[in-house]
């Protein structure tokens, strides 16, 4: 019985015999439905499906294809555009310009940040430049670009580099700064220095931020490209997707406008979910540097 002395009651030692456990009892399979729901692709596909259905319902309710074509009409226009080759050529035009500008911007960002981590002056340069140019919308530079590079790919690439460079540089630099001091010391301990230090240690260690910078840059690049093409796109060999959208709006082919927009969205989704997702899976997630969301 309890003693009221306020002191702990002493009890006898107890020992337990542990019976052997059947290993199979410890593991239970999960149902197929649960495992399917674990797949992000399936969940995202469901979301897309729901959005398309909502769109279709809204369009039917509105019943005005000039203002809001239905999902089915858009799909039909998309199919027709793909089959007669007008859309694929526009997509190819846009993508080729996009990739050139994007790659140049990414290289520039890497060079600037490499400079910024190696010298104090480089860091100040990066800081000043990004705070100057980052808020400047790429489209605002377009008139200037036209003046300098003329009506053509050159101007588009110029504004693309501008839109990609600063956002990516900020991200990559933040990534370099967040590399743990211990890891940096471990690298220097092996005698890593200069470029080898950047490529063998800093870049892999900062890869999560670099990837997120690449992703942000990609979105910025798309945005800028379509907007720039809307302003002048016809010049560069038949124009790109932005021009396609602009042209069809002028002629009130609203379903084609939607088809063009759908292609922009689809390419964005593909890049995000196939390219960047697999890059992340192969690298930072495998290495435990980023949790699967």
């Amino acid at each position: 019985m309890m003693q009221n002395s306020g002191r702990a009651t002493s009890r006898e030692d107890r020992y337990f015999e542990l019976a052997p456990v059947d290993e199979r009892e410890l593991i239970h399979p999960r149902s197929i439905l649960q495992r399917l729901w674990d797949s992000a692709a399936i969940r995202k596909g469901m979301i897309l499906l729901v959005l398309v259905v909502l769109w279709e319902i809204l369009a039917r309710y509105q019943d005005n294809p000039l203002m809001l074509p239905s999902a089915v009409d858009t799909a039909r226009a998309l199919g027709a555009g793909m089959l007669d080759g007008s859309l694929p050529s526009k997509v190819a035009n846009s993508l080729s310009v996009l990739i050139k500008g994007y790659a140049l911007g990414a290289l520039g960002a890497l060079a600037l940040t490499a400079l910024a981590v190696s010298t104090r002056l480089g860091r100040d340069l990066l800081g000043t430049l990004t705070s100057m140019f980052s808020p400047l919308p790429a489209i605002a530079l377009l008139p200037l670009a036209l003046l300098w590079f003329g009506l053509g790919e050159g101007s588009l690439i110029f504004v693309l580099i501008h839109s990609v460079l600063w956002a990516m540089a900020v991200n990559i630099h933040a990534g370099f700064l967040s590399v743990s001091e211990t890891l940096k010391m471990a690298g220097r301990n092996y005698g890593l220095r200069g470029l080898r230090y950047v490529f063998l240690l800093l870049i892999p260690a900062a890869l999560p931020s670099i990837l997120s910078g690449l992703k942000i840059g990609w979105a910025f690049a798309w945005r800028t490209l379509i907007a720039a093409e809307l302003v002048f796109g016809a010049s560069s060999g038949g124009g790109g997707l932005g021009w396609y959208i602009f042209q069809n709006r002028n002629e009130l082919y609203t379903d084609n406008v939607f088809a063009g927009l759908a292609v922009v969205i689809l390419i964005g989704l593909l890049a995000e979910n196939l390219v960047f997702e697999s890059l992340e899976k192969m690298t930072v997630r495998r290495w435990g540097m980023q949790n699967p969301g």
Partner: protein
Amino acid sequence: METLAEPLKVHGVDVVKDTLIPRLAVDGVTIDYVTPRQRVRATQSVSFDVLPADRFVLLGPSGCGKSTLLKAVAGFLKPAAGEIRLDGESIRGPGPDRLVVFQDFEQLMPWKSVLQNVTFPLRIARRLDRREAIERALLTLEKVGLRQFADAHPHTLSGGMKQRVAIARALAMEPKILLMDEPFAALDALTRRRMQEELLALCDQTSSTLLFVTHSIEEAQIVGNRVLLLSPHPGRVRAELDCSGDTLKSLGSPATQERGQRIHRLLFETPI
């Protein structure tokens, strides 16, 4: 010491060199660290010699500059006064002849597997070819009992296993001296005890020279054959003791306990 270094190099007699010249000589070293507002003295005129195959422990309360000293030996910090010599040669900057095992688990490269983590410095600093590096890495991983985890990535390992990888990585390089900065402080007590046992066994096997920083008196006695006691603010040498008689098995013995209490008094009694 300086006068001895000259003729020894000329004759190139290793036996004499090993016995006469300490592996590591820390000679009147004063280290300041710089904050934006001021320079703060971390250690003042610290001198000690580490002989080959020593397990030399720097022991002291936080703020005694023991980690700072270790970083200076590693070459990450430059002393404001005094000199640190490795095999008679003054230390300039970090180098793979003095490998550090840090306390932090983040010292492993998360983008490399356990095996790649061990082979990386072998390839980079020792310039071994692929096969040789892998062979040696696997051998060392075997020694720390992690061979079957060679292809795992560090984030899948427990804290104790990560430290074992870091130790294997350093041992595989066969550095002239192995520097350990409270390598077991972030581990749970049971794992820490096992790691101490394993480290001692490894040191016996490989006869490595060890410079080990800790703030635990017990750990210092177990791990070290020689213990340097540092006083805090600034770090100065309070005593240098022989602890080769204190082992894991002697922990309960009166001699070991008495020495522990003596160390405790030296560290915590107000200095003269």
